[in-house]
């Protein structure tokens, strides 16, 4: 089979057609969605929290060093750190990291099911295997990633605060004032829209690469690498598009 872009995109959309067709039995999907929330969502809280606290801290230090001027009020550092987290870090950067974690997990799981004939076995039972395997993952991540984003925002801002307290690089009170100043709720909406979109991108693309893996474990490895690379690139493209559409 040819691997040019159009062919790939065509197969992707055909698969999505199968994935998004009407589920055969709702109750089963409900249970599977909960299980996927646990395995893809809850299991990612740790890594998101760790990255966010460090990034919040680093951003605050960098802002403090860059804005060192008597004409710039110190609270702007808190403001800038918050805006960086809200606008870009907690949605896009977190999504890129999750593309690595969740994307490779999905692609290798589904790819292994493909090469060990588990997908064929589902098809033989008369199950729409694409929908049965991929849809619960999509629903779970699209619903849950926004929570991870909000969590990341909170922890990131807190990380900045901790740095202020520990190093005194900025007065903690000024930081808090900055964090609260000129708050635009729409930025949160913007960020959540992005994170749901990115969740869909990661899960569907990784599911696609896993679903069409063939051959042996080498191919599954390749499929999961490709899934991460391609979903990261598509995330960056959509980040640009969504920012242009929603913010300007």
């Amino acid at each position, binding site marked *: 089979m040819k691997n040019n872009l159009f062919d790939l995109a065509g197969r992707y959309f055909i698969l999505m057609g199968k994935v998004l067709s009407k589920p055969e039995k709702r109750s*089963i999907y409900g249970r599977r969605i909960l299980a996927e929330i646990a395995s893809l969502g809850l299991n990612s809280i740790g890594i998101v929290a760790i990255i966010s606290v460090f990034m919040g801290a680093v951003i605050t230090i960098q802002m403090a060093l860059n804005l060192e001027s008597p004409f710039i009020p110190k609270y702007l550092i808190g403001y800038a750190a918050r805006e960086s987290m809200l606008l870009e870090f907690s949605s896009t950067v977190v999504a890129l990291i999750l593309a690595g974690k969740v994307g490779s997990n999905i692609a290798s799981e589904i790819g292994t*099911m493909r090469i060990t004939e*588990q997908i*064929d*076995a589902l098809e033989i*039972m*008369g*199950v729409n295997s694409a929908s049965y395997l991929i849809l619960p993952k999509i629903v779970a991540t699209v619903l849950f990633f926004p929570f991870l984003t909000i969590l990341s925002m909170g922890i990131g801002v807190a990380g900045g605060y901790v740095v202020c307290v520990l190093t005194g690089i900025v007065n903690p009170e000024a930081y808090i004032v900055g964090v609260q100043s000129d708050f635009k709720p729409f930025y949160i909406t913007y960020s959540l829209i992005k994170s749901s979109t990115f969740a869909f991108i990661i899960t569907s693309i990784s599911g696609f690469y896993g679903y069409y893996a063939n051959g042996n474990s080498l191919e599954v490895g390749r499929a999961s690498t490709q899934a991460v690379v391609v979903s990261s690139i598509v995330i960056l493209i959509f980040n640009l598009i969504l920012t242009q559409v929603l913010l300007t």
Partner: protein
Amino acid sequence: MIRAEHIVKSFDGRVVLNDISATFRTGTTNLIIGQSGSGKTVLLKSLVGLHRIDSGAIYYDDICFSQLGFRELKAIRREVGMLFQGGALLDSSNVEENVRLPLDLFTSQSAEEKRERVHFCLKRVNLENVDHLYPAELSGGMIKRVAIARAIVLNPKYLFCDEPNSGLDPMTSVVIDNLIKEITEEYNITTIINTHDMNSVLEIGEHVLFIYKGQKWWEGTKHDILHTDNRELNDFVFASTMAKRAKACSQIHLDEP
């Protein structure tokens, strides 16, 4: 009844199945035999539609299987049970969930009814107290048996088994062979079994199809198979030293216990 007419299947220009026609009757055990790589698995997968055939036609009773739409295909597949060569159990589910899956998906039975049915099927393949084990915790033979239980849990009208007893010890093999024969007769199933095990052939080979290099080379019953003068089939049947010796002392009748 399943009927194959002039099936041709090739991969990247390499012909694997070359003009195979056969009729598999209901209520009898139909065996497909042949050397490793002769095309048995490809034939079985073509018959169930996992491989798209290049030309030819496949009929399930009077329905032309190769021309079915997506929806009709799904409907007919609910009447199909299949055992894959590697078992193909879902890794993320335990034994009970694996066997129960078709019931969960396609019946509205109560949890109690499902559990009973699952245990009944597991018992028929001689498995007990393994409900909560995961495929990674089972031996190869146990995986096969769980897979058989899953294939028969919905009382299929068509049953396909790819090497049901490879990897099983001789005693369990006989149990599985006879189980397949029993349910085939009991529920009047159309059963097609791939095997390269001569014991199975002599045990349950009511209708045997010998595939050689992708072609139908010979067709007959377990009784005919020992007296054929088809050279390739003879080479296959009497490949083992033991069988050769047994044939040499012709007073031993292999086809009678």
